[in-house]
């Protein structure tokens, strides 16, 4: 364990270019997926919180359930879509970072949408009467609330980021773990483990955790500062 820790520090300190490339790719893929999933999922969650339509409760239950989608299943589904034998094979996206972003976006979307829905529904109970009194339509109200509770929504987004940066099943299958092209932190860890190089795998794991911790700390400080300013 201690050996792995010092190996982790050694990895970080030496700025190994291969490792740097892997880290950058991991961040690119996961952050892109979270951005995309937020762009779709936040308005979706808001709309679901505010609108009333038949079957709404069934949709909410389904969305909540999708939070637990196994990454490897998503990976398999996207692989079948993007494979040459599949409907979108012509795009030639398999084994590229784009395919990884697609898979992770699908994985993270239900998390962000479901958590946003809950947060906005809670806010809606506070704001509903006042907004309706001002003549604000449902869709408009959803967007207003999204912006108003944006720092609480940050938690939903961070949950999505956690999921994306931690998963290996989806990116392994659709990315292929190609050296220098689609190898990310989690697939690199899986590879080193399968090679029996456990200290290196552990060291990489520590680096990954450190990065995710740093991101979360930054988000937390941002949220605190904003709350102090806007009340």
């Amino acid at each position, binding site marked *: 364990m201690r050996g792995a820790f010092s190996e982790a520090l050694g990895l970080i300190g030496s700025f190994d270019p291969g490792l740097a490339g892997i880290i950058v790719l991991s961040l690119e893929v996961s952050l892109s997926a979270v951005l995309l999933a937020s762009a779709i999922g936040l308005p979706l969650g808001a709309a679901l919180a505010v609108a009333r339509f038949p079957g709404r409760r069934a949709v909410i239950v389904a969305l909540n359930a999708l939070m637990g989608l196994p990454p490897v299943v998503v990976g398999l589904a996207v692989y079948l879509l993007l494979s040459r034998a599949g409907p979108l094979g012509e795009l030639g996206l398999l084994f590229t970072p784009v395919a990884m972003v697609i898979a992770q976006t699908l994985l993270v979307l239900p998390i962000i949408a479901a958590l946003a829905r809950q947060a906005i529904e809670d806010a809606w109970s506070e704001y509903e009467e006042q907004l309706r009194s001002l003549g604000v339509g449902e869709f408009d109200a959803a967007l207003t609330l999204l912006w108003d509770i944006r720092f609480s929504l940050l938690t939903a987004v961070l949950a999505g980021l956690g999921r994306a940066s931690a998963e290996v099943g989806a990116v392994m299958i659709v990315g292929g773990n190609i050296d220098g092209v689609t190898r990310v932190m989690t697939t690199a860890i899986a590879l080193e483990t399968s*090679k029996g190089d456990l200290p290196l795998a552990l060291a990489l794991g520590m680096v990954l955790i450190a990065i995710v911790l740093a991101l979360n700390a930054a988000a937390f400080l941002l949220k605190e500062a904003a709350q102090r300013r806007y009340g």
Partner: protein
Amino acid sequence: MGGRTTLALIVAVAALGAVAPAPAVAQERFITVSSTTSTENSGLFRHLLPLFRAATGIEARVVALGTGQALDMGRRGDADVVFVHDKAKELVMLEEGWFVGRRDVMVNDFVLAGPRSDPARIAGLRDAGAALRRIYDARSPFASRADRSGTHAAEVRLWQAAGIDIASQKGPWYRETGSGMGATLNIASAMNAYALADRGTWLSFRNRGELAVLLEGDLRLFNQYGVMLVNPAKHPHVKQALGMQFIEWLVSAEGQRAIAEYRIGGEPLFFPNAAR
């Protein structure tokens, strides 16, 4: 802090995504090669592919899977070239028309590793079949990959050569790990069990414990690698010209020399044997 800063952050992240080197996605001169995890784990590709690229300007992207999966990937047309080590299966699929242009490339070998204490007393034998017979008779612990990989297939054939139908004759001494080579060796090391391993993984394996190579050199332990092009007749999108360049480079004098030069700890791993 607030709206404008949030926006700035989002733009910065998006810019990072756009500007940071998108690894050769824009570059057209690449091929997708499906190969096996044990080949990847040996580090051979790290050594070969830059040489290939320097010679031809083509980037070979290797997706490493189990042998069966690698061949299947070729059949589905998700790869341009397939580079595996299960000649029997390769020939069958060649016959079926999924691949064309097969060439022998190199051999590597398996070693029979086990605890130094050698309870089954196989050290000094030259015949792998006889060694397995002794292990069976002694019911010594044996760790098997049991994952339908090329290595596993070779192991099963060796048991058959020893006159043992391992599927029906195994007992608690026979541990099926269902895992990759490294993980299986980890288990063998922890249990002081015998195991069949490809030399590449063995040489890079850092967790040997009491294990050592007890038998090697039996011809039946040699493993033939072959390379094939996915049949463009079945999959018109296959990068035929670039793929053939890869195959031709592997069997060329230059490629064969590169293979022979690859060492781990000073020991050669692969023995080029492309027919002239």
